[in-house]
């Protein structure tokens, strides 16, 4: 049998969503294994199970041929499995070296921890990653991509036999990516199995020895590097490829600006001096890497985040600074994280959809009238629900998102802002959401779409704005630009 790690028949559900169904994965020492798949295909969930972060509902994990249970991150580390997750898990107000060795610092002298030796060992690892920083520097003062590298340094500080990297490159610049890949290759030589998730096709083709493709939580195919090229991957990852003809042709001439943003600066410094406008009936895409300040920017527009300077105008009149006045002026936001920011989990579809309908004070809600409104949205958007009183969490991700979009539209917005609107949404629903947005724009609504997926940005936008490190780095006409130009602007390459 294998001397590596094997996952067999892994299944996991989150409420109504079957995230994984009977997925198998085999990892051999000294290979780089890419798990490919669209958003919501279950890649991250699979990695989290192997990393001990979440428990599978069913399935077995074998380490060197023996079955083991992974109940915690600690368990996973015991068997040599270390995970570097998408979300950073550093202690922000501790130093770099402290973070690297947190919980397993072996540098000791007779008084306790030997900090000099800790720093020395941290520097060794950081050098392998090709970064030179003071190991005592507080992690919170580092830019996000360097924090990511500290996280990887921490993983390297263990005796790791299986390293799990969940989108390690999403916030890195090209030279940092190549430094990281050099380390990955080194680890491969040392006999470590590296599992990689990345959205960038060129990266996975460059470094991987083996590929496994997931779609909608199911195992689709697996192959050695030799049998794989771009088309092989796309054919398996995507069920229905979006058609070129679906794109809109938008003529901006003579359209007035609906949303105008002038010199907007975040109080906490996530972005600064942002100015742009969105015209009537236009779909503007806002591209950029994670941590570029896009979510913070749109949350400020919606009045749930504080600014230190700048103004926001809707049809020429200034918008107030809290969420109620923003909504009243016509700014509606579909936020990036459904579970944390937009749905109220324990509430029904009806309550969630009608949440922006207010008559303050103790006023009666007419159940009949509300159900009639809900029925029209359910029909219009094809929302699949057992009824208006079903809990929102019983719906699939795509249907939940449609409910949130309907809630926003119910307020008659002048501009609809969507932040990562198709994250965790299956492909069918994704296409439906795109269709909904196009129809809305055709009817004259202005739309701002924030997305980390370049494909999505190109699929839907008429004009593309790009953010990098808190600043607008480019404004591009979709029909006159290409993906390489957007990626360059997003990663800060001039």
């Amino acid at each position, binding site marked *: 049998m294998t001397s590596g790690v094997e996952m067999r028949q892994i299944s996991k559900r989150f409420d109504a969503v079957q995230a994984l169904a009977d997925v198998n994965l085999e990892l051999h020492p000294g290979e780089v294994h890419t798990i490919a798949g669209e958003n919501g295909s279950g890649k991250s969930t699979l990695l989290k199970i192997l990393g001990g972060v979440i428990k599978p509902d069913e399935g077995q994990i074998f380490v060197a041929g023996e079955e083991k249970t992974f109940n915690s991150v600690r368990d996973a580390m015991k068997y040599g499995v270390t995970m570097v997750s998408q979300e950073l898990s550093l202690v922000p107000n501790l130093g770099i070296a402290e973070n690297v060795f947190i919980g397993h610092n072996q540098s000791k002298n007779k008084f306790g921890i030997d900090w000099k030796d800790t720093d020395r060992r941290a520097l060794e690892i950081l050098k392998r990653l090709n970064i030179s920083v003071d190991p005592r520097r507080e992690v919170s003062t580092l830019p996000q991509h360097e924090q990511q590298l500290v996280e990887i340094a921490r993983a390297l500080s263990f005796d790791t036999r299986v390293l799990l990297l969940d989108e390690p490159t999403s916030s890195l610049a090209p030279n940092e990516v190549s430094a990281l890949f050099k380390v990955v290759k080194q680890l491969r030589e040392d006999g470590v199995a590296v599992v990689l998730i990345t959205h960038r096709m060129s990266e996975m083709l460059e470094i991987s020895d083996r590929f496994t493709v997931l779609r909608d939580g199911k195992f689709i195919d697996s192959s050695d590097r030799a049998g794989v090229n771009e088309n092989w991957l796309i054919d398996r990852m995507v069920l229905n490829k979006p058609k070129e003809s679906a794109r809109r042709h938008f003529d901006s001439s003579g359209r007035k600006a609906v949303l105008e943003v002038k010199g907007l600066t975040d109080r906490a410094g996530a972005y600064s001096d942002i100015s742009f406008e969105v015209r009537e009936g236009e779909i503007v895409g806002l591209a950029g890497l994670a941590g570029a300040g896009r979510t913070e920017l749109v949350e400020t527009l919606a009045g749930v985040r504080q600014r230190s300077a700048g103004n926001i105008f809707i049809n020429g009149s200034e918008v107030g600074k809290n969420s109620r006045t923003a909504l009243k002026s016509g700014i509606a936001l579909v936020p990036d994280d459904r579970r944390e920011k937009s749905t109220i989990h324990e509430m029904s579809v009806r309550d969630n959809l009608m949440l922006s309908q*207010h008559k303050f004070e*103790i006023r009666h809600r007419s159940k009949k009238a509300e159900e009639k409104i809900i029925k029209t949205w359910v029909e219009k958007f094809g929302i699949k629900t057992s009824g208006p009183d079903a809990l929102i969490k019983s719906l699939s991700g795509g249907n939940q998102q449609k409910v949130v979009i309907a809630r926003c539209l119910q*307020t008659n917005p002048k501009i609809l802002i969507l932040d990562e609107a198709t994250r965790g949404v299956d492909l069918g629903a994704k296409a439906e959401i795109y269709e909904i947005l196009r129809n809305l724009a055709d009817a004259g609504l202005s739309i701002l779409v924030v997305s980390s997926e370049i494909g999505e940005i190109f699929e839907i936008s008429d004009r593309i704005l790009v953010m990098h490190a808190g600043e607008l780095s480019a404004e591009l006409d979709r029909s006159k630009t290409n993906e390489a130009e957007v990626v360059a602007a997003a990663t800060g390459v001039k």
Partner: protein
Amino acid sequence: MKFRLPSLSTLPAWFGVLVLEVLLIIVMAITQPVFFSGSNLSNIVRSSAIPIVLGIGMTYTILTAGIDLSVGSVLAFSGILLSGIIEFMPRYLAVVVTIALVTMIVGGINGTLIGRLGLNSFVVTLGTLGIFRGIAYLVTNGTTRSIDTGPLINKIGDGNIGPIPGPLFVVVILAGISIYILRSTYFGRDVYAVGGNEFAAKLAGIYTSRVKMNVYVISAFCAGLAGIMQVGRLSSAAPTAGAGLELTVVAGVLLGGTRLSGGVGSIWGTVIGLLFLQTVSNSLTIQGVSSYWQQVVTGVLLGAAVLFDRIRLELSGRAKSKEKK
């Protein structure tokens, strides 16, 4: 024909407590005939009324993911305030003025600090718990004041209205109004929304700070009313009244399935939870068990209820996973 039990997850969280309550009543009725006498049953109802009134207010605050620890002290403060003003005006007016003042003063302080300024509810109400208990002692110099209650105050605290115990009357009206508010009004929906996901509620345009402020005003109103009921029950106002009662009330609310993290819960649950605690306490007394044990039993029940709820959710989650396969 297949008969299927309703699944655990579709039953309300308080259903288990209701079953226990019924079982307890049956067992006690068989083993201790005294328990099932009319006077004992009405005694249970009367002694449950004040915790339930406080519990209704508490349910609002816990639903918004807050808590109001000041209710026991405010109950005492309300009684003392009544004793101070009752000589200067007609009794019914004194009742109205007392409740209005308590609502404005206590609700104003708790609501402004927690709702408007966003301070932590536990800390703020722990502060007001001390302040109003202290004031009650200061004003009375630690002594109990007897009050000539007259028929109105007596009726809502202890007496009968027709054949129905007065306190029961108050509870039914208050619970009925609250069930309506929480289920069928915009404000009620906002209370659940703020506790369920405050960010989402704010983003949807709900005036979250005002909702949070209002729940503390409602809780203060309930505590003020409970203070009057206590005076009616004892014909006196004591600065020690309701000491430690906030913990019983919180226990009953949680026993009734309201989640401490907010967003889930009901008035029904609170009524049943507190009624159950009172029945247990009454049963133990009848069995001749020391009152010290009653506190231990309350603690064990609370732990068991929370554990049971966890198991219930876990089981229903697993069942769902199997079903879809």
